[in-house]
């Protein structure tokens, strides 16, 4: 394995054996890419890169020193220690081989797309030992519209530092997880010029009904949906028939879009013409639903999918998957046993005739 392969892995080369060193997000992006799902191209910065960073600067000892004798219930104390650790991580250069690998991988992406300094998203990709809901709750940093190799390298380091947020540190202290054993991978992914984006659940999150796909969508990048800044449009789709059952169109007042001049994603007001109309066509709703359904089937359990419609790609090819992870709330509930045993054969028919289903009133 070359140094480049050790520290970075393009999504399309991530194998099952690599999952531990690329974190959940990159593993899922790798799997989707290899299954032929349209995913923005990119690469993972492996946990080996982070490990090399720690080793090269003796950061492990430093982190342990900061946290020695910390009281998990004393949030002030934890907060001070966490902040110090983040500053320490940010104050060091990356090891030369790591930085070279990241620059090479980024240059490869730019060359492939034919775009100099291609804007990318840099996101943390948590490993199993990490805070279970860290990525979901947006605890770890995500940097959008990052341009140029210097900025990418800097943001990778910022992601690493975000492993030491106060909350994450406190959680690990409380649960006796050795702080320095927790590693992090980082995803560097081509920025989507999102016309609209959002999340799709391959079950109804309100009821656990697996025959439905529920989609939240808003204009621009999906962060506005995930963070709850806008009330998204909401669509319910029958999973098997692939029919839209209902649409709730909301007033979507702001959107997050890339600003090429500033080189960052900016929040701006949605113009009046678009605020109160559906941000997805029916065809797009169905395409998102099919994507969620496909990912559920691939992963063999209900999924929570982040997706975006890329304004730069032609219709029919413009839906991109950004992330897919198992739905955790309903999937972990034991399935409710039927109240009475199934009626089978003739007695089943007798039971049905005596209590026909349509006899039940609604609600």
């Amino acid at each position, binding site marked *: 394995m070359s140094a480049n392969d050790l520290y970075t892995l393009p999504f399309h080369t991530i194998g099952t054996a690599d999952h531990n060193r690329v974190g959940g997000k990159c593993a899922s992006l790798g799997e989707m890419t290899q299954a032929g799902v349209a995913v923005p191209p990119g690469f993972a910065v492996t946990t080996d890169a982070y490990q090399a960073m720690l080793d090269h600067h003796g950061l492990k000892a430093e982190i342990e020193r900061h946290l020695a004798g910390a009281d998990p219930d004393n949030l002030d104390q934890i907060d001070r220690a966490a902040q110090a650790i983040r500053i320490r991580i940010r104050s060091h250069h990356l090891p030369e081989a790591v930085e070279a690998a990241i620059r090479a991988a980024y240059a490869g992406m730019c060359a492939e797309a034919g775009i100099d300094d291609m804007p990318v998203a840099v996101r943390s990709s948590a490993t199993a030992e990490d805070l279970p809901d860290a990525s979901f709750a947006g605890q770890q940093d995500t940097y959008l519209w990052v341009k140029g190799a210097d900025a990418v390298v800097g943001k990778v380091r910022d992601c690493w530092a975000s492993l030491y947020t106060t909350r994450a540190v406190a959680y690990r202290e409380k649960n006796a997880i050795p702080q320095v054993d927790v590693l992090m991978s980082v995803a560097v992914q081509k920025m989507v010029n999102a016309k609209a984006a959002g999340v799709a659940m391959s079950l109804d999150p309100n009821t656990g*009904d*697996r*025959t*439905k796909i529920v989609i939240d969508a808003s204009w621009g990048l999906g962060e506005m949906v995930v963070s709850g800044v806008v009330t998204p449009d909401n669509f319910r789709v*029958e*999973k*098997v*028939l692939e*029919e*839209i*059952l*209902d649409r709730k169109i909301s007033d979507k007042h702001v959107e997050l879009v890339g600003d090429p001049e500033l080189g960052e994603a900016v929040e701006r007001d949605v113009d009046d013409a678009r605020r109160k109309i559906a941000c997805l066509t*029916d065809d797009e709703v169905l395409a998102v639903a099919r994507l969620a359904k496909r990912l559920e089937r691939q992963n063999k359990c209900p999924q929570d999918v982040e997706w975006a419609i890329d304004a730069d790609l032609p219709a029919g090819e413009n839906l991109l998957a950004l992330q897919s992870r198992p739905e955790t709330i309903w999937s972990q509930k034991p*399935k409710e046993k*039927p109240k009475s045993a*199934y*009626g*089978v*054969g*003739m*007695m*089943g*028919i*007798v*039971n*049905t*005739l*005596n*209590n*026909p*289903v*349509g*006899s*039940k*009133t*609604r609600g």
Partner: protein
Amino acid sequence: MDVKKPLFPSAFDVKAPEGAEGWQELYPYYTRFQPARRAEDDEKFWFCNSQHWPNPLRPFDVIFLDFAIKCLGQYNSRHLLVPPANGIDYRILNGFVYFSPVAVAPEDIEARIPQFLDRAGHYYGNWNDLLANWKKKVLAMIAEMDAISFTALPEVVPVDWVKDGVGLDNTNAIFEAYDKLIELSYKIWQYHFEFLNLGYAAYLDFFGFVKGEFPTIPDQAIAKMVQGVDSELFRPDDEIKKLARLAIELGVDGALMTGSVDEALAAVAAQPNGAKWIAAWDAAKDPWFNFTSGNGFYSTDKYWIDHLDIPMGYLRDYIPRAKAGETIERPTERLLAERDRITAEYREMMSPEAQEVFDGKLGLSRTVFPYVEDHNFYIEHWALGVFWRKMRELSVMLKDAGFWEEDDGMFFLHRNEVRDILWDYAAGWAIGTPVVGSAVWPDEVKRRRALVAALGAESPIPALNTPPAVITEPFTIMLWGITSDAIERWVGSDEAGDGIAGMAAAPGVHEGIARVLRSPDQLGELQKGEILVTPVTAPSWAPVFGKIGAAVTDIGGMMSHAAIVCREYGLPAVTGTGTASAKIKTGMRLRVDGNAGTVTILD
């Protein structure tokens, strides 16, 4: 639902439509709400079955109301002992048919179960063998009906009868033919129900199980899992499509496109390949043109085989479409693949334990379901088509004998009154006097015709009295879509608003222009892409489903013809709206949402 005040009027408070006063005498005493039984009849909930009887009955047409309902009942109550359900009580009010299901007393249900298990179990266990035998019985009976004919009485008894010492005259043949025809149609109706109730019961069991697993699954998804793609009900339409293709292939399509049916056939015959096409046309006619544009229950039903202009019209619709490169055939392979996909995907979401039960119930449903669809061709279309043709011959014969002035006069008499007419005819012939009826019936037929027309001028009230808190009778739910929800919709349908709600019968959303049709004779008015709005549809309307954009009906459950055909053609459909055909006018722009079961008038 407020149970204190009746939601619907009492039959005894409903007035006759203007000009229809005295309609009661058109129908036998046992079909009417009798004041002496008011207390009893007001206790019951009655719903108007305008799905099967969308128009006021002519007196003769009471025959199949009698036979159908009696025979449905006998299978529930006397053959199979369906545990909770006896038959369906019926009445006629203002010419329309009202039903009230008869439940078995709760304390008697248990005792019927062992008998039901034994009797119904035998049918389910030997379904295919018994059904093969059924088909033989029915075909034999159709042949027997077909052989019946009515011949006017001759001037004199044939001389060889005299010389052979026969000792009888020609009137016997008329009495025998009439009685035989009625008797055969009565038997045909028994056969009609021999398998049907069981078919519905098995389907309902499957339906209930799937709903239990997936409470929000659309009804149409369950229907799609069992519905066949090669039902014989689709054959007549498929035959027309094949004839259209063959005409193009043989180069006789141009000759078919103009003139009367006879002219077109003559023009084809004159073509070099004409004979080959004519042979195919003749082969398709029998039996596949034994196909009514109604439902077989009315003497007014038009059968293709008697009105070749109907299939010719469809043919003339298909030929240019086929020539323009359109695929006119039903995509049966895609439909089958779709059925398998839907089944597999729902099954995948079940526990292994549930999957096993699902497989069993699905298997039985798919075994029995073809009957639910196919019987319709053999009974309503083919057998009843022969029945009506023979009865029309008789009506014309009696017209010629002076009883009335129009070909269809007989159908304004009850079937037992016709028996009297036959006697009058026979006696007058024998005695050598003019028939008495010629002084009575021509005016009476005119009067009755006007009464029936006056009855048809008003839409029927959807139901009578107070519905039960919940509807439990399984066949009522299955066949007519009469659920507690449906009743709530009827009650709400008087409220103002542009929204019309019904059953989500076939998925999809379509916006377009409405075309309101009240009779199959108007089918020719439909333009491509329009939304068909009608009280009820029949399977023989299939050819028009190839060109409409969506369908909306007043009446119909999850298994109504419109629902089945629309799912087959991939068209959105909303059925059982109660009032769509009254609220919507031709030319209105509509949005039909077959997923939500709603119709919106856009402008």
